[in-house]
């Protein structure tokens, strides 16, 4: 996807421009993916006879594909749309790592069947912001170290972005309560709360 596809999750089409972290940082040169996922076909057809054609709209892109009724939105996005930002921590709606927005509302994509999401607007972490155009909450997570391993982070960010829009950020305790559907095993909760509060104070989304 290009940066032009990077819209705010409220669907208002607002784009967040560069908010680069000013702190110094080195460059990380990780071993390459043996085959970068971008070199693979974007959509892989499902093999089963029970598969049916569906149309999904994710991050303002439209995907036409066939899906089995039993495929969850999470598995379909991760395995067939190359959208691996949403994570699978439990597959049972217990951890929140797969949180996305469906029509602007938070949803656990592991508890959501893909075939039921036709005609809805789905936003994932890949649609929230990019490295060159971070969403303010993404920048705040870096600033306040609202993560360690980063695995729950896409889900935390999607929950946090919704929280800001929903207005559940009146106090630290309110944020804690409304962010309690997302487990962070590294225990970065104080940083997550601080990050959400800082964006709230900045008055950016609202």
């Amino acid at each position, binding site marked *: 996807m290009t940066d032009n596809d990077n819209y705010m999750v409220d669907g208002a089409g607002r784009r967040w421009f560069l908010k680069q972290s000013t702190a110094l940082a*080195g460059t990380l040169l990780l071993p390459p993916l043996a085959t970068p996922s971008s070199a693979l076909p974007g959509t892989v057809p499902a093999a089963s006879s029970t598969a049916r054609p569906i149309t999904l709209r994710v991050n303002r892109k439209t995907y036409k594909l066939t899906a089995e009724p039993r495929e969850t939105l999470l598995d379909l996005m991760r395995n067939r749309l190359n959208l*691996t930002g949403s994570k699978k*921590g439990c597959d049972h709606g217990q951890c929140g790592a797969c949180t996305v927005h469906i029509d602007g509302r938070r949803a656990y994509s592991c508890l959501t069947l893909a075939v039921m999401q036709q005609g809805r607007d789905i936003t994932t972490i890949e649609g929230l912001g990019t490295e060159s155009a971070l969403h303010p909450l993404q920048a705040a997570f870096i600033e306040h170290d609202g993560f360690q391993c980063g695995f729950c982070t896409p889900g935390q960010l999607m929950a946090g972005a919704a929280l800001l829009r929903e207005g559940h950020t009146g106090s630290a305790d309110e944020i*804690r309560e409304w962010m309690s559907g997302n487990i962070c095993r*590294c225990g970065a909760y104080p940083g997550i709360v601080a990050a959400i509060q800082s964006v709230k104070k900045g008055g950016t989304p609202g």
Partner: protein
Amino acid sequence: MEPKLIGDPVDRIDGKQKVTGGAHYAGDIKQPEMAYAVLVMSTIANGTIRDIDTADAEKLPGVLAIMTHKNTPRLPGYDANKPGATALGRVLHLLHDDRVDYSNQPIAMAIADSFEHAVDAANHVRVTYQAKTPAPGLPTSKAEPFRPQKLPRPDDPVDTQRGDLNKAMAAAEVSFKQTYHTPTQVHNALEPHTSVAIWEGKQLTIYQATQGIFPSRERIAEYFALPPENVRVIAQFVGGGFGSKGPVWADGVLAAMAAQYVKRPVKLELRRSDMFGMVGSRSATSQQLDIGASRSGDFLGMAHRSLNQTSVFDDFSEPAGILTRVLYKCPNQEVTHRSIRANIGSPSPMRAPGEAPGMFALESAIDELAYQLNMDPIALRLKNYAETDQQKELPFSSKSLRECYQQAADRFGWSKRLAAPRSMRDGNILIGMGMASAIYPTIRDEASAKIKLNADGTVLLSIGTQDIGTGSYTAMTQLAADAFGISPDRVTLRAGDTRQPKTPVSGGSRTTASAGSAVVQAAEAVILKAKQLALNDLKSPLNGQKESDMAVEKGRLFLKSDPKKGEALTALLKRNGGNALEASTSSKSGEEKEKYSMYAHGAQFAEVRIDEALGEIRVSKLTGAYAAGRIVNAKTAHSQLVGGIVWGVSMALLEHAIHDPRTNRIMNANLAEYHVPVNADIPDIDAFFIDEKDEIVNPAGVKGIGEIGITGSVAAIANAIYHATGKRIRELPITPDKILSFTA
């Protein structure tokens, strides 16, 4: 000299990738023709497989193979499947026989062209068993305890004695004796164990969620009877480990077996429920503490006798007593470890293995004794402050525990605490304040690194180490940048790959001390080459000077006695042909390890608020001061402390993997019923570092910080709960039913 960028709160170098979904974990790796493997797990805890019927499963669409003990090719190096010399090499169940030694043991593997097809196939495998009665674990076990052959770290003896304990206890004016119980815990890193295995002839590449790419490479190579260089393990990003990804478990080997069997790349991603058994746990413990003291509070004798559980097929002994040997001054002491065997998955190291349950018991006991002696808990600890390591009879390389007690107490507001239990309340809410010491050994393993200084002044740092979320990538980059006095964005890091220089497992809080020291020494070696280049270069202002008289700051080599005399490293390199300077080093601890005892220390304080009628416990305040040598990155180091303290809340109040004693099956093998803290459980945490310089401990000057946070917080909370309620709970987790119970 100013420590420059070291210590600054530098943002993580991989922060942007992590917040945009651009960080690739093992489960995000895709391969052409990649197949998916799903495990079938045992539903009994002891017995044999009578029959395993795969006929229905094999007929399902997309299924490539069902591997069971009946058709799995024998691994050529399967004979090496023995308890390892370290905690990393465990005995694995690899579909080689019909034995079932614990519930939720992998007994078959379905491999299909999609995840959905693999799950469906796994669900259609029918298994019948010849079941036997399982041996239960603690606290139900009636098995005869045995003395384990070793503890996980070879430096820790199983049993220690000093002085004359019996005589001291007989002479003591005050004596104390209690037993503490801790439950089985499961690490539950949020990222499930995942491996993507790719064979190209006799070359194997595995993208793996692991804390140790090198141990994994070596163990997997051993099973397949390959030279280690034929196996490449890559861990770009790891979604937490907490010990569970330290040992080499069956998942990586099984993925490689599956990929070889179906001749396609295979991804094996454990399901959450799969993680309750085959990838380790913290052993339950039962610990007896005996303390004999004078009426004025001097410890005269102390015994810490710890019982833990291990599996029927492997040896792992939770080293719960090791810190009792060193934390307080006490001339007469006995510390022992015993184990029982049970039909459970093998226990393994989990964040502060031994230290976490052991410190809960020890620091609860010290608190109890303080009440018995009518002394302030800090005063009792200060009275028995260990100036030296009495067990090893060595001085400490540095120890700032006194400062930790004082600064944490001040910031917490300990002086506002009323000494008597149940003396502080806010309406129906009982308020309690408690504290405990924190301590963790500084461990350093052999590690290597390669540094290349380019003529343009940029640095390429190559080092194998994985970053499990601690911030290792960032810390390594900072240490390299610091050596040359350049900005970290001038350093490029190659890491997370066994093709880079060898480093140890990221566990035991050892990465910065080990790999970081290798970075510092590799940089020193490059700088030495630069100095030699300059002193032999007629055109250099440093021509003819001595190496030891030169230093580097801000990318400039200069004469210490006359800093104006010098030149930029880029100028020196460009004039000398523009070639890069490169050095590789292997770094390990030396004689300092024989001469000094090395520990990080801390003091943790907790305030709890407990609803008197409901027994609901809320942790309302956590303050901790820690001394851990040089802090490389204030931001990520703080997060490490906070994470450890959150784990203390979790262990004190929530975590408990509950076994049904009749079947030995874990009854809460999911994240809804195995409780870990959510955001609403965690208050603001005031965790901070005390300045501590330690030039002895290692070249990086650092002590481990990943685990110390949990070593004090569990007992601090338990002690606060006693102070609030007057009820001493000696069995974790401390839940409302125990607060309300009149029998506790």
